[in-house]
């Protein structure tokens, strides 16, 4: 369904020759100043169609960089050089006057049936080029080119991988509360290229991406809305497969980091235990031995050595970590309230979670040993965090009030720059 995208990386235009202190933003620091970046509208070489694409590409780059909270785009009205001139001879002294720290220029041209997009990123203060790329692609992929350029800029300046050329799957919801329909949907992380995956005549819950983002595990309640079953949807074939109807109600599926099995919960006789399901043999294996408690919402550490999960064995639902082998269950959350949805950062350094205390919901993070707990956002109803693939941003379900629309929000974990994700209707439980 999703066309395989062919990108050619034609050449690195040149590499910085300047060894002086370069423009760099350390996003591990608690406080930082966003980088002022000037993104000149890309040049289409006089071709009106290319000109439009070129302008749109520069807009998408600007939106990406601004959305993450680490960059502020300098007002384009103040620009004193166009993209073509910036590409050949940037007048750094003039850009300094505008307080631009970074400067981007780009050209869009045809190369056979393909687009070729050249861009350069400059450090205004050291007057040097930080990076330059030429990207070739089918014209319909111009948005992905823009995201890739934004990723390159982000990576060059922060030292971290960008996450703009990524997609998000979530549960799109519509209709009144009492007869709500839910559909799996997929979109670019900025809400563009939105497509529905399932039809809406089945209740679907808790979608989770596979490590390669080619499959989605989720719970499907069936045509009769009373047979909740673990399903896997294959994005390449467009097919969904039901996995076993072993005793017990399956919930909370997540792929293992190696992608060869799924970890999940199954509820039976009033107790909910953790299970593993081998994707080759389709065999389920119980891995917690509860007879009365609820063990739910499991998630592996990225190195697959530990599992974080929720248990109410201590009374209220709290966060526990155990060795993947099944020993050393350790409670790591101790604040007042109730926890759910723990999810390990792809960097391994933090666990994001939902916390509910009184009438307020929080999205927070803590280290895997339980230290350093801090809340990123609070509100009427927040739940279901998911990490950006680089572990710098958290997206989650957010609702402002009882009758408010249920939507998706995203926040960066250092600058707390929060954005509403643009979706066509209502939605919940993103997976990134």
């Amino acid at each position: 369904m999703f066309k395989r995208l062919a990108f050619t990386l034609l050449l690195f235009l040149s590499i910085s020759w300047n060894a002086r202190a370069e423009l760099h933003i350390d996003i591990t620091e608690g406080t930082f100043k966003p980088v002022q970046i000037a993104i000149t509208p890309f040049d289409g070489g006089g071709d009106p169609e290319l000109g439009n694409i070129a302008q749109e590409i520069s807009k998408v780059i600007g939106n990406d960089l601004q959305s993450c909270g680490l960059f502020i785009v300098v007002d384009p009205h103040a620009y004193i050089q166009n993209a073509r001139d910036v590409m050949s001879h940037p007048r750094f002294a003039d850009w300094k006057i505008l307080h631009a720290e970074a400067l981007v220029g780009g050209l869009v041209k045809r190369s056979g049936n393909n687009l070729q997009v050249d861009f350069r990123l400059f450090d205004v203060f050291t007057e040097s080029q930080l990076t330059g790329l030429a990207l070739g692609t089918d014209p319909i992929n111009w948005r992905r080119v823009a995201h890739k350029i934004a990723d390159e800029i982000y990576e060059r300046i922060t030292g971290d991988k960008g996450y703009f050329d990524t997609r998000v799957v979530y549960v799109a919801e519509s209709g009144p509360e009492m007869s709500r329909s839910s559909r799996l949907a997929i979109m670019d992380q900025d809400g563009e290229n939105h497509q529905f995956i399932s039809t809406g005549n089945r209740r679907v819950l808790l979608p989770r991406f596979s490590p390669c983002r080619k499959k989605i595990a989720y719970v499907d309640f069936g045509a009769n809305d009373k047979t909740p079953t673990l399903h896997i949807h294959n994005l390449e074939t467009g097919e969904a497969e039901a996995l076993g109807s072993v005793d017990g109600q399956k919930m909370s599926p997540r792929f293992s980091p190696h992608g060869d099995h799924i970890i999940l919960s199954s509820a039976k006789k009033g107790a909910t235990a953790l299970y593993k399901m081998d994707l080759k043999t389709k065999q389920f294996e119980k891995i917690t031995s509860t007879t009365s408690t609820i063990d739910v919402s499991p998630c592996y550490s990225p190195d697959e050595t530990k599992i974080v999960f929720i248990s109410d064995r201590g009374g209220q639902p709290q966060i526990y970590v155990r060795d993947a082998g099944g020993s050393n269950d350790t409670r790591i959350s101790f604040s007042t309230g109730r926890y759910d949805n723990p999810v390990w950062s792809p960097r391994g350094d933090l666990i994001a979670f939902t916390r509910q205390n009184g009438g307020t919901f929080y999205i927070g993070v803590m280290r895997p040993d339980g230290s350093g707990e801090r809340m990123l956002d609070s509100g009427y109803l927040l739940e279901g965090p998911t990490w950006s693939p680089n572990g710098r941003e958290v997206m989650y379900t957010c609702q402002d009030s009882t009758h408010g629309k249920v939507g998706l929000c995203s926040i960066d974990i250092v600058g707390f720059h929060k954005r509403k994700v643009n979706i066509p209707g209502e939605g919940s439980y993103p997976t990134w």
Partner: protein
Amino acid sequence: MRLKISSLLATAALALSACDCCTDECLDASGQGALAAAQAAAAEEACTPGTVADFVDNVGDRVFFDFDRSQVRPEGLETLKRQAAWLSTYSNYVVTINGHCDKRGTTEYNLALGERRANAAKEKLVAFGVDANRMKVVSYGKNRPIVEQDGSEWAYQQNRVAITVLD
């Protein structure tokens, strides 16, 4: 099904009072417009022993729970006793017990909690003599509210529930 139950709820009082006497009153209500006819039909059905409406209106299909709890309360126990007696009379029915939670929680934990509530009701029914093989349990957690969640305490309470549904 859901729609039917809620419309039955609206007419439960009428149905109950009608059934206290005779079916004539139920039938008298017919011919007074569509709504009245529907109410009459529901009331009449409720008056017919062994029907879904009889079970819902005269026995009671739901037991309620406290916040984050799955212990059956005393009045719930009485309801389940009546359900067990009814199910022993009408032994052709199998049931699904649906577990629900109010919206002030998270999807994952509440799926588990809903199962625990539905199972608590099931265990009582087993204790009162209903064959466990006649009963299935399914949890909708917070994701399938029974009444519109308007933020009122009443609505929260209505949604912390296990409902015995005749299949």
